[in-house]
């Protein structure tokens, strides 16, 4: 028996990468369900991706207005109840603003918008979104952000490290001044993951630098099938 997993992708006004996220889900073998920021429920999806882009024009702070969108009420409740949620780039910013993940993402240290292929190390291969990788595996996926510098106070950073909640780290050059080279973090339960670079842009040889990003989506499908 095969049941197709239904993975929601939320489109906010100003989202850019919702189509690519949906495509990555389909390539990984899932069914992508379009969710709208104004929706009052999650249409029974098995997981949610908050995509990259510039929700609400990045006005006020990145993700600050999206956090209060109608769809975020049921999403926050479901995430606290264990629903798998992946936030990519702007989606990561929304997860931090929603306090589903600790810390915040601020302006890149050198003030430049950075767009390049970035080498990462997967530090935690036990989250719902990273179980297809080997611990310590190095991957290359696109990075494109202006406000990608991850900050949190020292005690929060120490807690993330000691609990293994740093999911991915920049290797080589730290592109944006992120504390401790952090590229992605997870919540305590491991169902909510935020990542600044874009795995959904690295799922096909034709359009991506690698297919290294596909693992985020196959991890989830594998985990949901086993669950």
């Amino acid at each position, binding site marked *: 028996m095969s049941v197709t997993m239904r993975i929601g992708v939320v489109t906010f006004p100003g989202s850019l990468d919702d189509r690519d996220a949906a495509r990555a889900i389909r390539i990984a073998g899932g069914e992508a369900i379009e969710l709208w920021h104004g929706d009052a429920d999650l249409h029974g999806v098995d997981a949610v991706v908050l995509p990259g882009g510039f929700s609400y024009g990045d006005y006020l702070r990145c993700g600050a207005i999206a956090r*209060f969108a109608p769809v975020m009420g049921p999403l926050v409740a479901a995430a606290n109840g264990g629903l798998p949620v992946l936030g990519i780039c702007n989606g990561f910013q929304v997860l931090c*603003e929603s306090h589903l993940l600790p810390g915040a993402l*601020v302006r890149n240290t050198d003030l430049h918008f950075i767009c390049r292929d970035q080498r990462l190390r997967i530090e935690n291969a036990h989250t719902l979104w990273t179980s297809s990788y080997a611990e310590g595996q190095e991957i290359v996926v696109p990075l494109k952000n202006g406000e990608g510098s991850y*900050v949190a106070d020292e005690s929060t950073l120490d807690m993330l490290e000691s609990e293994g909640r740093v999911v991915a780290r920049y290797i080589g050059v730290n592109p944006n*001044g992120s504390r401790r080279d952090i590229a992605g973090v997870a919540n305590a339960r491991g169902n909510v993951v935020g990542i600044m670079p874009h795995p959904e842009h690295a799922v096909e040889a034709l359009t991506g630098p690698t297919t290294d990003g596909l693992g985020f989506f196959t991890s989830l499908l594998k985990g949901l099938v086993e669950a």
Partner: protein
Amino acid sequence: MARVIVDVMLKNEILDPQGKAVEGALARLGLAGVTSVRQGKSFSLELEGDIDESRLAQIHELAGSLLSNPVIEDYVIREDVR
């Protein structure tokens, strides 16, 4: 009509690259002795009627959730009496 100003500043321990860039520009334009520039935001709220305690509490609540992110920013509220 009442006016309330909400000033939002990055916490001291958060690096402010925009403030740094402004600091450099001020020095290049000849202002001597600038030791630090921090860039913040100011919101000016115009409200009908008077500000009572419950309304002020509501503004505090939103200043600490929507207008600022307490992880990286502090806010100050002042009533603009004219």
